[in-house]
């Protein structure tokens, strides 16, 4: 029997220099006083858990790179585990300095995720980003000089005014950097963001479904042709450079989240922390758990949840493996569903696995909901 891999570790750093218009992740403007307390609290929260060894580390946010050197050092020193196969930190071009790259290197960070979002300065402005394309260029090359050989570039597509041509230009310019990994997120309108308000006020319109679909397909075409593996709906990687940490989410495996608003999933239980830094500090500093809520979905729910998540991945799902993992006969329940979705060209069988087609990926919600058991 294969031994269970260690969980992934996620640390949510809730600081940004400036909040972006579209972002719904929890973050606040950088506050020097609070960063120290935050790092200390993460350290405490981690030591309160029994899990000590991790397979992957992902420091995200927020913008982890805005922490000053001392805070970064103490944060990384507490959460770096020697056994980690993949250690990623998210960074924004404007805060990715020489000094910080050096710290990353020293602490064994082996993967960088840099938020470029767009190669066009006008679009960056529209999105509320504070860096320019030139800033990114500089930060990227500097990272390469430091020897980072696994870099992800984040891009955003599907916002108002975007055309297929404009998006292609973004992709071609991104490819010039030859990154190991590219994430292309189609802009979603998240509740409570300034972007959401603009849409509601009618100041900006939402991209048509047809154009958004066109952009998705075009992305697949260009990046696949350039040798990337379209391994998840929004993620492309050079073969072998797929994000090990993120795969844990999509394979519904275990992970521990630290920091405000972070989520954890261990031993079939899922829990989430309080949403704000203030509440988080208030609890942890008083030796109380920052947990806000938890759920332990019943086996059947976890079963279809795992299927829905797995179908985000090009590798798809392995029915036999799932039947074994959950003790539920996959084929007995889903034979007709799978047949129907294959006939609709949304799924394909590939040896023992069932995988989404490109159409199945862009219609992932439709496909996933077919597997929901209610």
């Amino acid at each position, binding site marked *: 029997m294969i031994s269970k891999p260690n969980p992934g570790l996620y640390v949510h750093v809730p600081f940004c220099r400036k909040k972006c218009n579209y972002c719904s992740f929890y973050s606040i403007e950088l506050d020097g006083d609070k960063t120290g307390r935050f790092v200390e609290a993460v350290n405490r929260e981690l030591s309160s858990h029994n899990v000590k060894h991790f397979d992957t580390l992902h420091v995200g946010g927020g913008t982890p790179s805005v922490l000053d050197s001392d805070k970064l050092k103490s944060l990384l020193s507490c959460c770096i585990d020697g056994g980690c196969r993949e250690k990623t930190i998210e960074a924004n071009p404007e805060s990715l300095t020489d000094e910080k790259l050096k710290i990353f290197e020293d602490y064994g960070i082996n993967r960088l995720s840099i938020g470029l979002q767009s190669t066009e300065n006008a679009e960056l402005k529209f999105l509320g980003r504070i860096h320019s394309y030139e800033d990114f260029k500089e930060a990227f090359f500097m990272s390469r000089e430091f020897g980072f050989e696994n870099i992800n570039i984040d891009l955003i597509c599907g916002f108002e005014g975007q055309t297929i041509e404009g998006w292609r230009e973004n992709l071609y310019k991104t490819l010039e950097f030859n990154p190991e990994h590219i994430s292309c997120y189609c802009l979603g309108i998240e509740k409570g963001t300034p972007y959401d308000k603009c849409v509601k006020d009618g100041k900006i319109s939402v991209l048509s479904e047809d154009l958004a679909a066109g952009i998705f397909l075009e992305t697949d075409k260009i990046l696949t042709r350039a040798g990337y593996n379209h391994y998840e709906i929004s993620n492309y990687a050079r073969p072998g450079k797929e994000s090990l940490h993120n795969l844990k989410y999509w394979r519904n495996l275990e992970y521990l*989240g630290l920091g405000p*608003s972070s989520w954890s999933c261990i031993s079939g239980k899922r829990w989430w922390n309080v949403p704000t830094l203030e509440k988080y500090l208030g609890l942890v500093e008083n030796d109380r758990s920052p947990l806000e809520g938890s759920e332990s979905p019943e086996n059947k729910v976890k079963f279809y949840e795992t299927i829905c998540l797995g179908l985000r991945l090009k590798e798809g799902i392995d029915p036999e493996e799932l039947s074994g993992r959950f003790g539920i006969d996959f084929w007995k329940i889903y034979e007709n569903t799978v047949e129907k979705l294959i006939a609709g060209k949304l799924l394909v069988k590939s040896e023992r696995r069932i995988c989404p087609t490109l159409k199945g990926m*862009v219609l992932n919600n439709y496909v996933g*909901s077919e597997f*929901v058991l209610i």
Partner: protein
Amino acid sequence: MTSQNIRNFSVIAHIDHGKSTLADRILELTHTVSKRDIKEQTLDDMDLERERGITIKAHPVRIDYKALDGKTYMLNLIDTPGHVDFTHEVSRSLASCEGALLLIDASQGVEAQSVANVHLASEYNLEIIPVINKIDLPNADVESVKRQIEDVLQIPAGDAILTSAKTGEGVEKVLEKIVSDIPPPPEPKENKLKALIFDSVYNTYRGVVLYVRVFEGGIKKGMKVLMMGKGKELEVTEVGIFRPKATSVDKLESGEVGYIISNIKTASEVVIGDTITDARSPVSEPVAGFKQIHPMVFSGVYPSNSAEYEILKDVLDKFALNDASLSYEPENSVALGFGFRCGFLGLLHMEIVQERIEREFGLDIVMTHPSVVYKVNLKGGQSSILIDNPLKLPEQDNIESIEEPYVKVYVICPASSIGSIMQICRDRRGELLQTETLDSKRVMMTFNIPMNEIIIDFHDKIKSATKGYGSMDYEFEKYKISDIGKLEILINGDPVDAFSTLVHRSKAETKGRQVIEKLKELMPRHLFQIALQATVGNRVIARTTIKAMRKDVTAKCYGGDITRKRKLLEKQKEGKKRMKQVGKISIPQKAFTAILKTD
């Protein structure tokens, strides 16, 4: 008690003019019910009645009243519904009375329903006593209301009684007037039992309870009686009266009102309006003048969840126990599966049945576009058929002509709304017959309108055009030849039966376009493109397409998104499950009802 001391009466009034409150005061003043026991509006039982302020079931109550002349009188109050849909109930209540109180709100004046009901009472030659209620309201205008009663209803109102049912003022005068003006029941011609069944209710323990008015002879426990219309014999197991609770008595005499219980299991075994007589010594003629009422509006009623067909059947069976006016027979639809074709007395009746099925029985139902009853004259002969379902329309080649029912609609509204009311009626092929001025601010307009045009949202339109001040009522007028065609909605080339309606050809194109536009808005995108077409005969009058679904995906799905995403997919699946499948196409249930209100 001699029948000379009996007074049988009803109260006719527009909704909210205070009928139930007046009844409460009468019960209180005569000590029929102690003040402590009066819930507001004692006579209205069902929640829905209280909420809508309408009385659906007529409840007869016996009241003993010691009048100023020192004699004690037996008053039987037979409550009536206030809406014309329930004309048959009003009508049978009136058939068991000798008089009626016409109750008018002093601040509102005569309303449309009062007009329709006074017409009915006159048909039964009842003594009508005008009562002007709510005189305590600051905007009461008694003189104007008196004028309206005289001008519009042609009833002398000089000595109308002024009351405030709320405070009790004038209520005793009403009782005295009942005693002095309403005639006692006529002397029986012979001593054989002759009683009218004017209503029935279903009781879980007792079976069907019949409300009766005895015209001649008497009825008592153990008697074998014959229902003359049905030709069925019954043994009476209990005889009683309402005070207002059911109280058994030895005998009901000529002129009295009460109930009888026999071994009747379902309401369908009884015809309301039937005459009961002594099985051993029957009368030769039944009680005269009571017409059986036929449903006027038909609609397909289907369970939202097809698996609940049997439950729906049970619910309708239960419903029919109490409501003999509801007709239903099984039908099936490709789109909606198995259901029932239900016949209703009118719009309000339909809405009430729908609401009660959903509320009291917790059953979700889908109702198809309501239809009136058309008369189709067939070619090559004199034969004609009645059609209550568009799907039953014969082939065009066999049709000589189609007739549709027309109604006479009374609208009472502020003079300032005349223009908009005219427009509403004109849009619905209505013809203005006359306009009468009621007072300085209000008019009564009378229209002739095809019934089909008022069955959907006419009442709502009138209400909104008059900012809630307008009232309407209608009565059947006659059938007229009309240019009617079948509007069909085709989805990817196949007609969806549940969307078919019969329409006047002048309206077909607009209606067809409205329906497909509404469908386009409500139908989810599918994996393939969908063509929507509206046709009349074989002619396409409107078309549109719903593009194929191109993208349906959540871009990001990390730790915290997983639960949210699962819930989203669960919701999506729930939605899919609730849709009706027509071939490969899913149609949301709300599409079936939303197309009813297309403008």
